[in-house]
């Protein structure tokens, strides 16, 4: 096995650092910790990590700023930790380049799953992307522009396909309303979330077994959507 993957945790709460150091260490990660933003940035520059876990409420500079400054020179996946009541901070962090978020308090399984998704995406961005994505009975071929459900082809409109393709290419990650709208519709529609909602409803009708309780096209309230491949 190669060298252990390096995770940098930036959080000002000693108990969280202690818990993550123990749990992630046990999972064979190399963990370094910082309790201030500047310290975290310095650590990230000295020993480039494979994943950064970043708390948004830091004592010196805001987590949002850490996020933006990291993105100036690094594509390392960033997982943001935030309190429940700060929806807008979460969205702001995602729009500034964070890859995903977790709401405190969180279960460790959830955290490990997010780390896995983040690592997979950063590995993919270095190698040619797979064009075939599978989720339960769904098979999405990004190159051939076809979608099959249980083997049968599902007919999608051009916009529906663009939307599904963007979500599926980022499987497992949360995508904000803004980012989906600007990728799928382009800038002019970027504030018309209702477009997105209507198209998501159509996609669910065509792809989900029970559109009212979706398994793959999940809503992240107040933030955006997430395409789940393993559920």
């Amino acid at each position: 096995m190669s060298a252990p993957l390096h995770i940098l945790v930036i959080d000002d709460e000693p108990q969280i650092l202690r818990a993550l150091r123990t749990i992630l260490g046990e999972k064979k990660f190399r963990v370094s910790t910082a309790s201030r933003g500047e310290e975290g940035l310095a650590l990230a520059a000295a020993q480039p990590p494979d994943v950064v876990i970043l708390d948004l409420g830091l004592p010196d500079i805001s987590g949002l700023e850490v996020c933006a400054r990291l993105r100036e020179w690094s594509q390392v996946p960033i997982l943001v930790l935030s309190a429940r009541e700060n929806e807008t901070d979460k969205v702001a962090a995602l729009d500034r380049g964070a890859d995903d978020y977790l709401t405190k308090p969180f279960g460790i399984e959830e955290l490990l799953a997010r780390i896995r998704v983040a690592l997979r995406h950063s590995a993919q961005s270095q190698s040619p992307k797979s064009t075939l994505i599978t989720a339960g009975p769904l098979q999405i071929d990004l190159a051939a522009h076809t979608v099959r459900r249980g083997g049968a082809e599902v007919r999608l409109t051009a916009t529906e396909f663009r939307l599904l393709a963007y979500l599926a290419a980022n499987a497992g990650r949360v995508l904000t309303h803004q980012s989906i709208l600007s990728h799928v519709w382009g800038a002019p529609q970027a504030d018309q979330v209702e477009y997105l909602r209507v198209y998501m409803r159509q996609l669910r009708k065509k792809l989900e077994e029970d559109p009212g309780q979706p398994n793959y096209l999940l809503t992240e309230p107040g933030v955006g959507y997430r395409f789940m491949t393993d559920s």
Partner: protein
Amino acid sequence: MRAAWLTSPQRPVRWLLSLGICAAMTAALALLRQQLNAPTVAVLYFLPVALSAALWGLSAGVVASAAAFLAFNFFFITPYYSLLVHQLQDLLTLIVFLGVAIFVSQIVGRARASQAAAEAREQEAVQLYELSTALARLRQREAIAALVAARLQTVLGADAVEVGLRSETDNPEQTVRRPDEASAPVTPPHWVVPLLTARNDLGEVRVWRLRQPLEAGEQRLLYTFTSQAALALEHASLEQAEVRSKVLEESDRLKTALLSSVSHELRTPLASIQAAVSSLRTGTVDWAASARAELLAMVEEEVVHLNRLVGNLLDMSRIEAGALRPQRQWNILADIVQGPLTRLRRAAENHHIVVAVPDDLPLVPVDHVLLDQVFTNLISNSLKYAPAGSTIRVSAEQTGDQTLRVQVRNQGPPVPLEHLGHIFDKFYRVWAADRVTGTGLGLSICKGIVEAHGGRIWAENQPDGFALTFTLPLAWEGHPPPQLPPEAEA
């Protein structure tokens, strides 16, 4: 106005009037000169004198006296048509006549003047009475200032009246001017009266009246009005201070209730967690795998419960502080219901949840996260109180043009009538706390959220259970309903 007769410009007119009636009297007496002797004529001449004094005041009476004296002498004392007097008797009559006439004028004139003064004072009293009854109804500083300015402007016939209010909190003074349309007069005010009370300087009243200076009576009125206004202003500010202190007291009482409820609610899960964790850590007992799993599951459940409790407290404090500002977007209600259903799947294992939220309802302008919470709380509430195996029904329909009606109905026991109106109160529990866990905050949070969206929420017993219903307006001011993209197949 009666008081106007007293003012000087009309004095010559009144003198002419008294001369006029003297002339009329002379003409009438001249016709009867053969039948009347001098004393009778003298007595009759008192008539115009008294009348002049009564109608037009002392000076008019004196003018009438002089005119009557001359006319009497000229026309009725021999030799006629001359002011000469031959007989001592006639001279005496004339002198006595003049003296008595002036005396009568004085008496009648004074009576008239004092009557006018009494009427003026009565008028003043009426105006003051009207002012104080009107002031008694007012609680707002601006309203008091506006009333006083308007009354003063009418009563004094002023060009403009301005009331400037000072207070510790608003630094530039607040001014109210009457009449409204008058822009700030460029000249300095003709009178300025401070609004003083025993404790405070509350501002001042400024009066502009170019036409004529204020008379003593008018000045008195101005001062009385001003002191009435000062009293009313002070009363209003004391009353506001009292209201504020009552609000503080009430919020203090709530905080105490909150603390006692919260410390109990926080300690219970903490106690279970501590018991479970310390049991697991003790080296003396060798726990069976199933027992370990049971203890750990308990810890996890209690942690989830604690987290929900803290979340509820935060929400409640935001609602209380008026800091709950929905981040509205056009949403599909069916999408919103999904989240809570997915999250509550495990808790709802023993119930059937039926969802009847058509996905072709109009888009609704709400905050997704907050509405998610409303559904979570309402469904959790039903899960807690409805018996296992029963059905919980979540439904929504459009009622009227601009309203969506959403209902969560369960087959739980009916809620006694006396509790129905209170179940949205904070910390209110219909059933004893030991039967059901919870914070007593869930439904009051729902109420806060629904009302922040301009909706209404209520509870009612139904033939087969219990229902919580709320409405959501479909209109969003300044945001026309979105034009949806056409649903075309490729």
